[in-house]
């Protein structure tokens, strides 16, 4: 059975639980999802579904989730997760590919326009990749402690996650601005082709992710931002390759294309926020009824 089907079933069955049992199981579900991030998603969902089905039977006989599963849900979840299969190799390759792609994309973006020929710095990309891996892992570990944290611990865990994100952001910006390491220069006009190809492939990846997560129109601001970056990177590199500064004609072209894109970007961002707020209000009203 596919994971989304199990997830939908879990949502449906969870509504049949008493409020205390629902709260107990929600915590377990969240913990298993976060702690089991490296485990096969469908195996985790299938395991949770089997436990939910048994809990419903136990509830019908008057038992609570706590009495049925015992006092140590965290230890139980960890022991179960150890037995579940890891994510498929293809998923690991996709995750790895996305991280490498992000490092390449970010480093390329900030390298464009610095000098004639595009400087590609392996060390910068490697450090960026390492920083993202460490930061991502730290955030997952902190968040996975949330479901069973006390109110005080919860506060610290949120602060901790925020701090990690801040350090990641500072580190990323520092790496992209400083671009440490020796450069491999991609000569003109190949450099422009590399930039265009990078952004073209980013659109393809974004389009596929959009279909996978069904983001719909909420992905439009991201697409617009990519277009803006692509345009800026191409113009900057073109100028650097030709030893030119921005002429008045070119500046008008940049403003003519860039400003509408920027306005569209902000417009769609506001619209997306408005739509998601409307949806949240609608869902909360529906949940109350």
């Amino acid at each position: 059975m596919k994971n989304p089907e199990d997830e939908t079933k879990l949502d449906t069955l969870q509504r049949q639980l008493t409020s205390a049992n629902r709260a107990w199981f929600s915590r377990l579900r969240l913990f298993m999802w976060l702690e089991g991030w490296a485990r096969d998603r469908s195996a985790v969902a299938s395991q949770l579904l089997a436990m939910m089905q048994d809990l419903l039977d136990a509830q019908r006989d008057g038992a609570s989730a706590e009495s049925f599963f015992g006092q140590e849900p965290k230890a139980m979840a960890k022991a179960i997760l150890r037995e579940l299969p890891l994510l498929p190799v293809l998923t690991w390759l996709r995750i790895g590919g996305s991280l490498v792609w992000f490092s390449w994309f970010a480093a390329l973006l900030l390298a464009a326009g610095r000098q004639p020929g595009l400087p590609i710095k392996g060390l910068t990309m490697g450090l960026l990749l390492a920083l993202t891996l460490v930061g991502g892992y730290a955030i997952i570990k902190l968040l996975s402690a949330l479901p069973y944290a006390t109110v005080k611990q919860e506060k610290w865990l949120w602060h901790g996650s925020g701090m990690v994100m801040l350090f990641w952001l500072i580190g990323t910006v520092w790496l992209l601005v400083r671009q440490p390491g020796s450069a491999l220069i991609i000569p003109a006009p190949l450099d422009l082709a590399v930039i265009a190809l990078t952004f073209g492939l980013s659109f393809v990846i974004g389009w596929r992710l959009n279909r996978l997560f069904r983001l719909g129109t909420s992905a439009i601001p991201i697409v617009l931002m990519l277009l803006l970056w692509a345009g800026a990177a191409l113009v900057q590199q073109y100028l650097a390759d030709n030893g030119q500064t921005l002429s008045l004609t070119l500046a008008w072209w940049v403003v003519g294309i860039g400003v509408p894109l920027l306005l569209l970007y902000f417009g769609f961002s506001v619209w997306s926020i408005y739509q998601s707020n409307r949806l949240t209000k609608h869902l909360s009203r529906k949940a109350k009824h």
Partner: protein
Amino acid sequence: MKQTQLLRGVLEGCVLAIIAKGPIYGYELMQALHGYGFTSIAGGTLYPLLAKLEHQGALSSRSVASPEGPTRKYFSLTTQGFENLTAFQTQWAAFGAQVAAVMEAIDDEKSRR
């Protein structure tokens, strides 16, 4: 000594023996264990064990729709599971006899005094 400590080594064998009777789902298995007197067993012990046995290939599972409630995950023994059960039964027979011999000797000594 707590029942849980004694159970640690033998629960797996008991679970395999119950499942050997026929396909069974988690809650039913728990009730069966409680029925045999293993009242200290909770889901926190049983579900990791079932996951382990399934991972090792001793159990297989399938979802079966139920007219009384939600679909249930039924566990059955695989060939590997039956082999594990036979091995456990042999070991338990020898172990049980050894423990019984020790207890008998102590009882004899007590009665002689």
